[in-house]
């Protein structure tokens, strides 16, 4: 895996390797741009979403002077005619260095015409071999190729800058398909960005564009080697690892418990490691997938105002801050242990009262015995509906994702068979079949074109259908999580409410017991003076009571360690029916007047605190309801838009696929018909 290793020289394109190449270009006085032509052809060739980005991408791709990585398996796949492949064109990379010396800001504004030089004969040969079999792509045979290429796309420059900055640090030479994936990916990023920008205009806000421009083995800020993802944000380039994205997301969830966060790609499971032992191809696949999905994640984050404006986001987007720096500074370092014990919208500023709130263990607390206002009920049903919607969404999108995977798989095997068939027809046509051979060849070509189209279509199923389904699924799951958080807060509210009611009724009981016992005492005192047995009974009662009191004390101490339990523990777990309550019940009649008095005072003090808690939780709940329903509404709106987008994209991919295939068959048919 030589190509994975870090090449010192790669880091600086203007150092030794490149400068001599540059000189050689200059000496020729012209730049040859066959390479760009190739890309033009590539664009014509096959795939769906293509953008000018493919220029810069493929261009820089061919820069890499490092050892070539080629996949054996792919090479076995027969391809018979002009399916462009660049990775061996070391000679054609020459011109690019020339280009890159032109000031990029100049390029940004004016269309730069790149002059042309004589192509090396060797290169020409290369092309004619590559394209010779296909009329459409064949390169003229004359040695002087006159061609100009416009470099007018800002994005070309932008990503060229980026690429040169990090210069393919460990850019693995990719096989053709991977190249296509890249161009498709660029297109994808482009189009998603484009959609994003559309939305921006609606909100009259411009928060710029963000995407992963590069990924691969490179050194992190501490100098150790790792797979890094380079975030391109405004003019910034930030290198982060996957795990840092993961941490960021975990922290964001704690920081914004009511925000439905965009998903990040899943971690490798241990199972996968066993099933697909790490190899270059798998790694590359995973890296490319992450590149796409992390781009979507970043774009999602950027579209959420609270995240965009947060300190954590700013830190993460700061190329000079390592994750360790970020993790040890305020937003993360002061995150509450539990979000339930913190204000929902600003968890890093908890009030002391929040620490007093109960920590519910499950959402299954019965609330029916609480009198709920009609307004509360309405809100509740609304959230219950949301809950149901997301549950269905989660289930259905999961099925959809599975179906996408299946069709992708079937398309892939279908593509492979088409490849075999096309190859075979082509071989068949080479055997002497007099007048038929051209028809057979054209049929073979049609099948080959179908093969190439199917290959890119398979990839589009992945990016246009499968991955968005994954996002839907994850977002639904995330929404359910956030809804669960609300539910827990609600349970919190009910616990407090119930405790308050308990306390109140207890005070009431105590007070009435006080009055009763006063009356009883009155009678007893009257009777005791006449009966020694009754006097003895009164004494016994007093003794028993002190025993009870002892027991009660230990019960309080044994309750759990949270603040809530410590303070309100003896009756907090009202539905649990712990020993405290029945003991209390029996106590009441046997308590002394003073004890009752003390408890009433204590309970009233508790009530004051409880009411404060209730106020806090009511406010929390209100905030959550408001923020959550806002977020969910936005999300559902986004879902609708996303669906539209998916359908539109898939339709255009589909149409392109169908049209190109049809065209190929029509040509084949013409050839067949022309046989006499």
């Amino acid at each position, binding site marked *: 895996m030589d190509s994975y290793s870090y090449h010192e020289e790669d880091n600086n394109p203007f150092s030794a390797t490149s400068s001599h190449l540059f000189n050689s270009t200059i000496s020729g006085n012209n730049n040859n741009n066959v390479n760009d032509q190739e890309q033009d052809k590539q664009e014509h060739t096959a795939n769906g979403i293509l953008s000018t980005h493919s220029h810069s991408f493929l261009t820089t791709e061919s820069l890499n002077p490092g050892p070539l990585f080629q996949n054996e398996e792919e090479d076995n796949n027969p391809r018979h005619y002009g399916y462009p492949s660049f990775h061996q064109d070391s000679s054609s990379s020459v011109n690019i260095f020339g280009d890159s010396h032109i000031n990029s800001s100049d390029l940004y504004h004016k269309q730069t015409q790149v002059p042309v030089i004589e192509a090396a004969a060797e290169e020409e040969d290369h092309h004619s071999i590559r394209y010779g079999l296909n009329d459409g792509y064949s390169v003229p045979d004359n040695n002087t190729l006159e061609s100009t290429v416009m470099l007018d796309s800002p994005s070309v420059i932008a990503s060229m800058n980026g690429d040169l900055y990090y210069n393919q640090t460990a850019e693995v030479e990719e096989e053709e398909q991977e190249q296509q994936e890249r161009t498709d990916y660029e297109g994808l990023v482009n189009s998603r960005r484009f959609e994003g920008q559309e939305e921006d205009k609606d909100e009259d806000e411009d928060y710029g564009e963000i995407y992963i421009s590069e990924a691969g083995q490179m050194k992190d800020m501490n100098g150790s080697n790792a797979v890094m993802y380079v975030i391109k944000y405004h003019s910034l380039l930030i290198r982060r690892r996957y795990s840092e994205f993961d941490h960021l997301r975990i922290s964001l969830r704690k920081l914004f418990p009511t925000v439905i966060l965009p998903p990040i790609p899943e971690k490798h499971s241990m199972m996968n490691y066993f099933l697909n032992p790490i190899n270059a191809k798998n790694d590359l696949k995973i890296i490319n997938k992450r590149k796409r999905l992390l781009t979507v994640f970043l774009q999602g984050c950027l579209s959420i105002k609270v995240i965009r404006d947060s300190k954590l986001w700013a830190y993460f987007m700061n190329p000079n801050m390592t994750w360790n720096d970020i993790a040890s500074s305020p937003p993360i370092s002061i995150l509450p242990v539990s979000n339930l014990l913190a204000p929902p919208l600003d968890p890093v500023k908890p009030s002391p009262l929040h620490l007093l709130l109960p920590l519910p263990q499950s959402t299954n607390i019965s609330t029916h015995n609480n009198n709920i206002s009609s307004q509360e009920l309405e809100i509740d049903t609304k959230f219950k509906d949301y809950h149901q919607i997301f549950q269905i969404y989660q289930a259905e999108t999961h099925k959809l994702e599975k179906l996408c995977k299946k069709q992708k798989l079937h398309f892939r*095997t279908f593509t492979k068979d088409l490849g075999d068939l096309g190859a075979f027809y082509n071989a068949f046509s080479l055997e002497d079949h007099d007048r038929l051979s051209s028809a057979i060849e054209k049929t073979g070509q049609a099948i080959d074109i179908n093969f190439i189209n199917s290959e890119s279509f398979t990839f589009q199923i992945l990016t246009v259908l499968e991955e968005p389904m994954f996002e839907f699924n994850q977002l639904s799951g995330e929404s359910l999580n956030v809804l669960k958080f609300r539910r827990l807060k609600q349970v919190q509210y009910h616990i407090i409410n119930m405790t308050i009611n308990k306390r109140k009724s207890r005070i009431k009981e105590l007070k009435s017991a006080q009055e009763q016992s006063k009356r009883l005492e009155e009678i007893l005192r009257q009777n005791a003076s006449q009966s020694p047995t009754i006097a003895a009974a009164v004494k016994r009662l007093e003794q028993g009571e002190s025993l009870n009191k002892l027991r009660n004390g230990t019960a309080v101490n044994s309750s759990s360690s949270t603040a809530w339990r410590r303070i309100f523990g003896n009756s907090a777990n009202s539905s649990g029916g712990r020993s405290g309550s029945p003991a209390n019940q029996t106590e009441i009649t046997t308590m002394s007047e003073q004890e009752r008095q003390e408890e009433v005072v204590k309970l009233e003090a508790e009530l004051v605190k409880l009411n404060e808690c209730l106020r806090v939780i009511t406010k929390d709940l209100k905030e959550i309801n408001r923020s959550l329903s806002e977020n969910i509404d936005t999300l559902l709106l986004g879902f609708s838009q996303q669906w539209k987008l998916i359908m539109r994209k898939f339709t255009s991919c589909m149409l392109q696929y169908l049209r190109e295939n049809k065209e190929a068959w029509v040509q084949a048919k013409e050839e*067949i018909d022309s046989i006499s």
Partner: protein
Amino acid sequence: MSDEFVDEPLFDSPAPIPAPITKQPIASTAQDHHDLITKQTEDLSISQSKIDTLFIKSTVSSPSKENDGQNAYITYLVSTITNNPIFNAKKFEIRRRFSDFVFLYDVLSNDHPECVIPPLPDKQRLEYLKGDRFSPEFTEKRCQSLQRFLKRIEGHPVLKKSKIYHIFLESTEWGSYKVNLKIKSDDHGLGSGSSLTSDGGIITDVFINAFKSPNLQSKEFIIIKEKSEKLDENIARIDKIFQKIMKRYGDLEQDYYDFSYQIKKIAELEPELEIPFVKFSEGLQGLSLGFAQLKQFLDNEYLISLKDLEHYINSVRNLIKLKDQKQMDFEAISEYLERSIHEKNVIITGGSTGASGFLSAKFEELTGQNPDLNKREKLNKLESKIEKLSKELDISQKVSQEFEKSTLKEVNYFDNVKSLELKESLGKLADKNIEFYETLISKWEDIEKSLA
């Protein structure tokens, strides 16, 4: 001319001559109709100039089941359009069952051993065991193969003039005609399975000579053999890949059906987008249907045409083998003749024929036989033998040469048919694909509009 091929070389020699190839009994059957056929040919030769513009076009369609239970069978409608004056009408239809086709095939192969009789689809097929032979799927496929069979005869310069073929197409008395023929062939133990026996005959002959090949292979035939082998191989491989692709179509059909269904469910969650969702779902369903149709086309038409072509190639290869046999006959005779001549020369020169010759001479001396008398007798015997052999050699050479010529003609004809059929099947494949894409394009363009 056909007599030369039908008649067995009258040759009884101790030399290991290959077993007779065409069976005498069949030849006699053929003889009975030979007059008819020659007469027919003469009729036609009058209007020789017109022959090129004469055509016979038959289609095989509408399979239908006759009778029920044990004796059930399928008949196919054979409709013909022609401008050939030997027919009573220009347009006629007749119902024939598969065994009628087999009968036609048998008679043709008896009458024209020098021709490649277009093969019929296998009778021994899985469908017979499964009891599916009345399923429309099976009979439709068979229809196509039978039509292809007739089409190949139609175009064949010799076979298309065959009387039995004309009777098959038009005669309402086919039944009695067949019975008469059948009785005769039954006399010789040739029942309905005659095609198999004759095939079997060839196979055993081939087997006997499995390790032999003619010494003098003409370059032309070596190339022809190579080509036909290669073609056979290629067709078989394309067939195999298409089988796979057919399966993929099936998978994709199911996938897009499921996907379409699942998308419809999502439409319930997004009531505002219901129309686009429903449209989208319909589009996916269309895709599923398209794959199903492509699959059906491959299964019912394309693969059948490939299979039929494979059969045809095999028939051609069998004919080439037959030709080799004729050549080997000739070679064997010429070898025997050479030996006899050599022996004669030895006797004449009286030279020592090695140890064995010396011993036999000594033995003759001892037994008191007159060596001179013996010698003369031997010489006489040998001379008559040589004479006989020379005649046979001439005949067999003629046979072999004629056979070679006619085989070349057959191969050429086959090449034509092959090109035509390949062209047709490729054209159909392209058409079906274009149809598939066109239907879907218009469907998805609609969807695109509804999404805009």
